[in-house]
């Protein structure tokens, strides 16, 4: 699941909130033993960037995030999202856990995430198409 897992960890942050909620609720219905070990809490992540003059990393500034940890037996799932959004952090933690363990309605979740991946791609393509309209076409005079 590692390659697919990485793919999901890259797109989960943009999965529609409603769909994420549905998926998490279906997991919790199927695996009610999942428990919250650290409830959603807002916190800060310092974002680091690499500058291009001397190739040095530096601290650009902090980003407000919400994180949550859930567990099933010894295994844990962690969710972290932008802003103050406890529901999303909790749902992400639940999905992280079941995708890692491969329990619950994993096939359904994976299918839904792949559909979301496609939707996100189309959204990006469409957004870039509107941005690309402002690309300059130079006419050389003379």
């Amino acid at each position, binding site marked *: 699941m590692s390659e697919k897992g990485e793919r999901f960890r890259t797109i989960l942050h943009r999965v529609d909130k409603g769909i994420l909620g549905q998926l998490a609720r279906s997991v919790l219905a199927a695996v009610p033993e999942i428990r919250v070990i650290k409830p959603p809490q807002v916190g800060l992540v310092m974002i680091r960037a690499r500058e291009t003059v001397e190739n040095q990393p530096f601290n650009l500034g902090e980003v407000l995030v919400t994180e949550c940890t859930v567990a099933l037996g010894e295994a844990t799932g962690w969710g972290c999202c932008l802003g103050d959004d406890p529901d999303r952090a909790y749902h992400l933690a639940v999905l992280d856990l079941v995708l890692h363990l491969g329990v619950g309605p994993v096939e359904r979740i994976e299918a839904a995430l792949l559909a979301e991946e496609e939707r996100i791609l189309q959204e*990006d393509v469409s957004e870039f198409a509107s941005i690309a309209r402002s*690309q300059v076409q130079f006419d050389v005079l003379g």
Partner: protein
Amino acid sequence: MGYVPIKGGQAAIEAAEKLVRYFRLRGGSAPLEIKQIQDQMRLAVDRVMGEGSLYAPFHAALALKQAEGDTIEASFLLRAYRSTLPRIGYSVVVDTRDMTVIRRISAAFKDIPGGQILGPTRDYSLRLLDFQLADESLTHIREFLSKFAPGMMRGEKIGTEEVPPSFPKVVDMLRAEGLLETLTAGEEAEEIIDITRQPITFPAPRAARLQAMARGETGGLMALAYSSMRGYGNVHPTLGELRVGYVPLRVYHKTRSDEVVTVGRVLVTEAEVIARMDAEEDNIPRFTLGYGLCFGHNEIKAISMAVLDRAMRTGSKEAPAEDEEFILYHIDGIEASGFTAHWKLPHYVTFQSVLDRLRRAQQVARREGEGTQ
């Protein structure tokens, strides 16, 4: 006159706080929604996030509402809120080559790989007041959106268009041609200084300088950079590349530390200025660079930061912009506004002491004056 402790003013302060609310609301207009500020005052929101050093669009918009549009006050509110929150950790280092670009221009070359993409800019618009905006309605907005981005609005599949590319950097091209100063071969400060945890000492590590400027006040950075551009110092910048776009915020998984999780996307502005030629140890002259990066869409700030970065790298302190201690101590909006505002607080005792000395000095001067006559 002796020291006289005083207290009081509590009732007046409470009444003043109510007056703040009253003056914001007495016009009787509909309450501003936070989402409206986030969407339609996006550059103010970006500025507050940058100067408050906290990427939190909702909270920045709320702060702007509370501060009645005063960006410095709003960034103060945001930074104060930040100080109440726990630090979860540091992100994976962002490479801005991975940016999803919404704007990208170069003033150095006409033809750059990927092209010049203007994106949302007013650079080529006349500065005429648009009175039509005074009558803008939801109908106008919907009509515009349905024409401008029909696919996006209806969630249609478009199919044939391009997947957003990542753009090669102009400085990478120049570097490949040997026209730029060489990179310090991957030498990294083992511990990246974090000025929210450690005070700046001078000479400041490069990471501290960049962090301080990234959270600097736009106007302060601009004024100091402008002094350099006008000739106090010797930086004549050419904008190698300016880009605005989203970079991924990626962190290591909390419990499985070999996994990287993308938490979201953060809008940033990046500027790279090419400045004067310098010869390195091999005596071959090359261009030198200055670097700017800040939260949100804030081009003046990123360019000013890049110009000051280059000015401070000269190593001389002949002009104010070249003196890192001078620059880094004066660009923080919250520190500067706090110190400026503190003069409003009672200084009754200190002023009384100055007054006593003045009276004594006047007496002495008069007595000496009488003596010489």
